[in-house]
């Protein structure tokens, strides 16, 4: 479905990706984990045409997509939810959502989808006519995630959706991703909330210093002591005995 081959790239003179290689399975959820600054978000930017790539290939549906613009990638069925806060500040919540489906041919379908994502995130319906900038941090994140669900992407890149969301909504989002996967969408997700993320994922990927270190099923990674020690919180994990989320 998506394969990344020997990718080198970075920001200006600084190289961040050092030969990252991975094959992402279709119609499955793959979660990428790794320490802060490993280059996870950078991989996403690379796939979505936002990074200066020095060498390597990204093959999507049999085509090398290195060098394509975001617009072209959207046309090929890739959607991207970046890390951090990304709304159009002065437009209303509803119009923000509408923009999420701006490239769709079938606008009626977008309308009905807006309706259904609002069911999923009731706060968005409640605040539909307010400016996006006025929402609370978590509400803005909801808006972003909701916005990514308006199209029928083949590949969804989603960078740490759980930041700022209340626990019940995190569960909701993970459930939705599973539902998308069941409908044949390939999901590539970055999560620091790694334990719950890996639990809902089919595969896991460990990225470190711009290289893919491990790539296995989610369960295997969760139980791998090296991964546990280095990335899942070492003794923090041992200390806490509960796990509500």
């Amino acid at each position, binding site marked *: 479905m998506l394969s990344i081959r020997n990718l080198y790239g970075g920001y200006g003179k600084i190289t961040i990706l050092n030969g990252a290689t991975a094959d992402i399975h279709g119609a499955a959820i793959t979660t990428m984990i790794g320490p802060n600054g490993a280059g996870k978000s950078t991989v996403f930017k690379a796939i979505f045409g936002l990074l200066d790539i020095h060498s390597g290939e990204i093959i999507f549906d049999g085509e090398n997509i290195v060098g394509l613009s975001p617009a072209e990638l959207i046309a090929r069925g890739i959607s991207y939810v970046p890390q951090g*806060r990304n709304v159009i500040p002065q437009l209303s919540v509803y119009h923000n959502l509408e923009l999420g489906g701006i490239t769709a041919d079938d606008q009626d379908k977008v309308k009905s989808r807006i309706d259904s994502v609002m069911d999923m995130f009731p706060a968005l319906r409640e605040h539909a006519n307010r400016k996006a900038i006025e929402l*609370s941090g978590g509400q803005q994140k909801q808006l972003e995630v909701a916005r990514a669900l308006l199209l029928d992407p083949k590949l969804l890149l989603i960078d740490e959706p*759980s930041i700022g969301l209340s626990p019940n909504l995190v569960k909701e989002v993970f459930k939705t991703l599973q539902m998308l996967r069941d409908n044949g969408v390939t999901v590539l997700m970055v999560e620091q909330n790694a334990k719950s993320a890996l639990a809902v994922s089919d595969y896991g990927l460990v990225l470190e210093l711009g290289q893919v270190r491990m790539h296995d099923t989610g369960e295997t990674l969760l139980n791998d002591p090296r991964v546990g020690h280095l990335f899942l919180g070492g003794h923090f994990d041992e200390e806490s005995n509960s796990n509500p989320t």
Partner: protein
Amino acid sequence: MTHPLLSVRSVSKRFGNIQAVNDVSFDVQQGEILGLIGPNGSGKSTLFNCLLGQYQPDSGSVALKGSNITGKSPSELNLLGIGRTFQQLSVFPEMTVIDNVILAGQEHSGSMISRLFGSPDAGLTKAAEKLIGFFKISHLRDEPAGSLSYGQQKLLDAAMAFMAEPSLVLLDEPAGGVNLTMLGNLKERLQAFNSEFGTTFVVIEHNMEFVMSLCSRIIVLAEGSVIAEGTPEEIRSNQTVIDAYLGA
């Protein structure tokens, strides 16, 4: 008579037709780690901003060690020993990491005049280096802060809140985006500050694992009002909280 470190009385804040914070009162005792949780949009950040001078509360008052601090500016409050972080990343993107941290401490060192004619770093480099060491970002010392990854900026942001050796620190989602291993480290750090220097904390977090293991007491906000208050165990089993926030 001893006063609580911070006492919040009937604070309310409204935006248009949204009652963001509704008659909230609570005390923060010296030396405790208080958790503040609640659904998205329940008014947690707004409450912080009311306590810290970013917003003027519509009504109510805030006192620090018994003296009224309502209406003081954020910088005055910082100089009184209150540190904070923001929910959104908030660093000085073009300055180096070390400069970010020095800036966080320099206003507490010397006078206006000595800061103009004294040494360029106000004698803070050592302390700043130690602090970024605590937060495991020493290797990024001379990078511009804006080029750090999300989680790294979050750590830097937290480090800055501690530079001035505050007695009270308000953290708005410090764990978001931070790697689990780092998070363990962060928690240890906070606990160390708490036990060594008696630093008091108020922490907003959606990461329950983190909050429950860190905090001694938790306040739950929903639609601007306090709906529950208690120890982590009490909160975890409180049905109202489960319905409003934690989910089944």
